[in-house]
């Protein structure tokens, strides 16, 4: 039994002031390897124990900076280099946009690494055993007592001196802590093949179950009820119709959007003149569109004023003036027919360049030109 090794001497105190005083005395006595155990944090303990500033802050700073830099590099690489994408008209490297994510990632790296740093530095993970575990001392200091423990590894350690000293400082009980070296062996339980095997098994089962749920179960009945609808897809078979085709021919007389056919052929000028009226009102907007399109499409041959003064310098026959009596009296349908279908085999059709509404707007503009040349004083 007594081949156990001495870990240290632990003393319990019944109030925080006594343990503060004891910690101060121990620290001033030159001991280095000792620790204080209390149920809650005690103000002023850092100074009493003469602790140096914790190193966790440095861990936090460095990993926070890593978070900041990696966030910036990531966004710069993805959005400015690898796949340049303009978002909202902003520059490719839009720093103000990136600051929130940079900040978040800095905080995330900093805080997570602080926790990991605490676990590794102070709890000595992955070590999962400590000589003070399962001792009466540990039970008391985690409920109602305040303890201090000097380790045997300290160069000044001497069991009798320390026991007497603790008694003098007002310790309620003093305990020698023993441990079995094999429990604190180098080979940690965490590296046990059984343990690792169990971890791998759990990982496989949970990832497999997740995969199966997301990829298989969710696509079985009854979870797919919203996906399964009675409908036909183009160019497939369907039992719904007797001929077995899913696609149906359009009803006779169907007109596609924006595809209103023109009913008058080139030798039906009389019909066009008598059946068609200008559907637009001569508003300012209509006149502006008419002027724009007339100047674009008509004026090269007919001239800006409609006098038939072509700008093409004889490369194409000059048309007659638009201000003749015949044309001033001709109905709107006449002009529409000419624009749509061309005239006399010389003027080509402008149906492809000018939409029906624009044609009517041009006609209003021509009317305005005609009026401006025949002002009655």
């Amino acid at each position, binding site marked *: 039994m007594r081949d156990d090794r001495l870990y240290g001497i632990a003393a319990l105190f019944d109030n925080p002031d006594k343990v503060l005083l004891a910690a101060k005395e121990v620290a001033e006595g030159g001991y280095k390897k000792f620790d204080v155990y209390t149920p809650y944090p005690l*103000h*002023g303990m*850092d*100074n009493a124990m003469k602790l140096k*500033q914790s190193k966790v*802050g440095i861990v936090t*700073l460095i990993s926070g900076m890593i978070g900041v830099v990696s966030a910036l590099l990531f966004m710069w690489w993805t959005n400015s280099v690898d796949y340049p994408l303009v978002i*909202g*008209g*902003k520059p490719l490297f839009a720093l*103000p*946009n990136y*600051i*929130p994510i940079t900040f978040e990632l800095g905080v995330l790296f900093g805080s997570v690494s602080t926790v990991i740093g605490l676990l590794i530095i102070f709890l000595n993970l992955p070590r999962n055993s400590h000589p003070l575990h399962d001792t009466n001392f540990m039970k008391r200091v985690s409920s109602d007592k305040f303890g201090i423990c000097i380790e045997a590894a300290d160069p000044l350690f001497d069991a009798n001196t320390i026991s007497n000293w603790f008694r003098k400082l007002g310790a309620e009980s003093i305990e020698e802590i023993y441990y079995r070296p094999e429990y604190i062996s180098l080979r940690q339980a965490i590296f046990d093949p059984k343990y690792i095997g169990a971890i791998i098994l759990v990982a496989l089962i949970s990832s497999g179950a997740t995969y199966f749920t997301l990829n298989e179960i969710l696509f079985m009945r009854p979870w797919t009820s919203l996906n399964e609808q009675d409908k036909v897809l183009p160019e497939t078979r369907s039992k719904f119709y007797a001929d077995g085709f899913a696609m149906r021919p359009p009803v006779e007389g169907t007109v596609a959007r924006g595809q209103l056919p023109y009913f008058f052929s080139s030798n039906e000028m009389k019909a066009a003149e008598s059946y068609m009226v200008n559907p637009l009102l001569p508003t300012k907007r209509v006149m502006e569109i008419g002027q724009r399109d007339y100047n674009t499409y008509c004026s090269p041959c007919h001239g800006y004023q409609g006098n038939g003064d072509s700008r093409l310098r004889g490369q194409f026959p000059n048309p007659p003036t638009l201000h003749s009596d015949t044309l001033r009296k001709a109905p709107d349908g006449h002009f529409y027919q000419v624009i749509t279908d061309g005239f006399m085999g010389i003027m080509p059709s402008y149906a492809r360049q000018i939409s029906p509404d624009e044609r009517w707007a041009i006609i209003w503009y021509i009317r305005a030109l005609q009026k401006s040349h025949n002002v009655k004083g």
Partner: protein
Amino acid sequence: MLIAGLLLGVLSYFISSNHIVFDGVMVFTYLASIGLGGLFWVSVEYVASAVWSTPMRRVFEFISSLIPVLFLLAVPLFFALRAAYEWTRDGIVKTDPALLMKAPYLNVPAFIFRTLFVLAIWSLFYVLIVRNSQRQDFSSDQILTRRNVKLSAAFIPIFGLTITAFSIDWLMSLAPDWYSTIFGVYYFSGTALSSMAAATIFVVTLNEKGYFPVKLTRDHYYNLGGLLFAFANFWAYIAFSQFMLIWYGNLPEETAWIAPRIHGSWLAISVVLFLMHFIVPFFALITRSAKMNPGRLVFISFWILAAHAVDIYWIVMPTYSPDKAVFGLGEVSALLIAAGVIIVTFAIKARGVNLVPIGDPKLKRGLEFHL
């Protein structure tokens, strides 16, 4: 210093009377933020039942005695509103539909009423809270602490509303077409930070020179430094939030305010402001030992007060001169007046009053404060 500042101010009035009005607005809003922040920290201490700051609470009370002085500063400005505020000029208001819509709120009588109302509310709470605190020196009556806790709990939400209205009136309406819904918080962040810096200067200097009747420890310093650090960060957070949303949204009615500040010499001022108000305090105060170092604390507190002055300058002055930053006699006199008013008020108030609230039941625990 105060007299020199006033003389310089009068001199620069003859050089440029419009310019000096802007400087007046700067002094007024700067001192308002410091004084109001002092009362804010006093009431936070009561509401949070903080003990560490109890020994130094008097300093915050002295700083908040700037609040009644604000009346003196506001009255001359009321007569000069036309020089600084576009919305007071009928010709401009009539041609601007946005201003016409805002006219029922933004007009001279309503503006003066709101300012006086807000100052009266602040003065009322200042008088009540400080009177209770000073009476306690003689009676040691705990009921006075309880009364102050109730007053403070009432004051804090009122403070939030009034400081927003105040900052909208005096600072945001310098550019009346522009608006930012976070502006009140922005002004508050400077308020909390600059008043804490002013208090830190007095507390640390008095304590280090031995004039403080009780001994404050490094742990008290640590809390002062921690709050300075926290609110420097808070300011940067709010300032950046305001900037980024405007920059990202890129809407004309919002960018009109940012645009002059990121072009020409104002861009340099903006960068300096960011460095002064955030980067330098951040790195100067980040370590634990820096927050406990008295020399460092006093220096960075002066630095923060200067940064807050630059902040106010950066808010106010682009309205006067959108093309380039101006600095003249008026600004020098503004700085002198601001510093002079703080020192004179502090000296007058501190006379005949205990520097430590000796009757406060929290005092003993506050002196024993450990981290």
